[in-house]
């Protein structure tokens, strides 16, 4: 261990019922880095976060956060981290300000220092006007922002955000992204962010780890991961629906099929974007009229597809009913 903010080695977590949730994760996050942990529901993201935040003992393997072992130095880890876990964990019967008062008190802050810190954070997340309203009446975005503010009370060096924007509208999502970006850029906070949104990982993360069935299948900067895939894909929609089979045959000459709209044919171009003109000529030669033709640069979904054989967006849709299993209670390792 040499100065990493988060480091995990062969981290495993089994549950009594069900498959292995986390299956030998190795990762290293540098101080000040925003690390995106990308994967569908049930991939093991939340279980990993629970282990790294000391809420769940690993079955095997080791992890250090802020230089402290997550199993043997839990209190020290907790003193160094802040966390906003899945679903804003707030009491609907308390106001935003009452939450802040409770959180500052539990972190040992008192008097003016506690009040000032609370007010500063409430203002920072734009909740000053709503601070005396009960949280039960807050919108999803307001709850998430309060959740983030509460996680920052004790000035943590490392922040864990577990799917912070799930269920938020575009405006709330953007606002939260800006705040997280500021935290990392201005305050040097290390951010470990789990998400199932490709765009979120792309926009926020310095590096991305793609997790599938409890294991990291790819890791790197978004740009490097996409460059690894390299080739763009082309998606074409025929003007006449009956031309779809013929269009498939023509485009199959240019590369492997990739998932696309049901009305379209999509292939990854073996020869890169230079082949686009050839594609157009081939379709014209076959007298297939094209309603729509689009070239897609590689995305993180393409990376996920190439590593797992499945589309992340497709998995997310399929598995929305199969939410990630909450860690079951187990005997605490230490008091």
């Amino acid at each position, binding site marked *: 261990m040499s100065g990493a903010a988060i480091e995990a080695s062969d981290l495993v977590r089994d549950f009594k019922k069900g498959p292995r949730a986390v299956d030998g994760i190795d990762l290293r996050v540098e101080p000040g880095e925003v690390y995106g942990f990308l994967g569908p529901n049930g991939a093991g993201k939340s279980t990993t976060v629970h282990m790294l*935040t*000391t*809420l*769940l*003992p690993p079955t095997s393997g080791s992890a250090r956060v802020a230089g402290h072992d*997550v*199993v*043997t*130095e*839990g*209190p*020290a*880890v*907790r*003193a160094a*981290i*802040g*966390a906003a*876990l*899945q*679903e804003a*964990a*707030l*009491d609907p*019967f*308390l106001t935003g300000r*009452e939450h802040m*008062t*409770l*959180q500052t*008190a*539990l*972190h*040992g802050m*008192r008097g003016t220092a506690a009040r000032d810190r609370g007010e500063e954070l409430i203002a920072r997340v734009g909740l000053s006007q709503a601070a005396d309203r*009960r949280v039960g009446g807050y919108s999803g975005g307001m709850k998430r922002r309060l959740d983030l503010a*509460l996680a920052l009370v*004790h000035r943590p060096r490392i922040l864990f955000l577990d799917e912070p924007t799930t269920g938020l509208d575009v405006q709330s999502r953007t606002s939260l992204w800006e705040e997280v970006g500021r935290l990392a850029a201005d305050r040097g906070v290390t951010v470990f962010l789990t998400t199932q949104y490709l765009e979120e990982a792309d926009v926020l993360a310095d590096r991305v780890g793609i997790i599938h069935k409890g294991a990291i299948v790819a890791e790197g900067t978004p740009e490097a991961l996409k460059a690894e895939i390299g080739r763009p894909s082309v998606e074409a929609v025929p003007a006449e629906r009956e031309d779809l089979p013929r269009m498939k045959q023509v485009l199959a000459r240019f590369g492997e099929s990739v998932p696309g709209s049901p009305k379209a044919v999509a292939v990854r171009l073996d020869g890169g974007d230079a082949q686009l003109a050839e594609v157009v000529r081939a379709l014209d030669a076959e007298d297939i009229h094209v309603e729509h033709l689009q070239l897609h640069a590689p995305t993180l979904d393409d990376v996920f597809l190439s590593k797992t054989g499945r589309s992340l967006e497709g998995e997310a849709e399929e598995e929305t009913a199969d939410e990630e299993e909450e*860690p079951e*209670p*187990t*005997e*605490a*390792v*230490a*008091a």
Partner: protein
Amino acid sequence: MTEAVRSAVDSGLPRQVGMLARRSVLRTMRQPAMVVPSLVFPLLLLSINSSGLESTTQLPGFPTDNYLDFALAIAFVQGALFSANSAGTNVANDIESGFLNRLSLTPLRRMALMMGQLAGILALGVIQAVTFLLVGVAFGAGIEAGLPGAIVIVLMSLTISAAFGCIGAFVALRSGTGEAVQGIFPLLFAALFLSSMALPRDLIEINWFQTVATYNPVSYMLEGIRSLVITGWDGEALALGFACAVGLALIALVAASSALRTRMVRT
């Protein structure tokens, strides 16, 4: 462990208890749907019993000629049963919403969480006990042990509330769901009905019922309160009442604390 970390961990038990107690009380008082039924239903049952069963006082050996005096104790125990529901539901909500995880990530001590939760139960218990006393007296119940007796009634009522509240918290912590808490509510009511709720134990003629009532600690809780209303200061009844209430409270508290240790997993 560095001094800073030690300081963060040891942020002061009394202050933690105070903050969590405040939260618990605020939370309880802001849920009228939880407070009102716990006042209305015991009073409703009291009014039905005391008017419908008045003739029971004619039975030879019945300790009073006013059934309201006899039935008043039921309201305190029935109100305490609502504490199980209230405490259990609040704890289950904290688990289901992830609030317990939020607390787990602070330097919070588990004992503070339990004590804070108890404070919420006791706040509701005070409102219930004072209301039942005032309504009872207003409708003609006499407290034979006088004002000091009334204070002891409130204390015993709070102890019973704490006991049932801890049972509710225990079920919530073990199961993690509000449904399980709702599920035990009828069982606790059965314990009330299978006690000396409607008749003194020596006047229950059905043998099995009398046996169950004799082994049922709820009987002694009722009889402890009842003694202060009907006979004045009865050391044995009070000792048995408090012993059952405190004993049940301690067992439930230990069980709930153990369940909290399992539920509030952190390394």
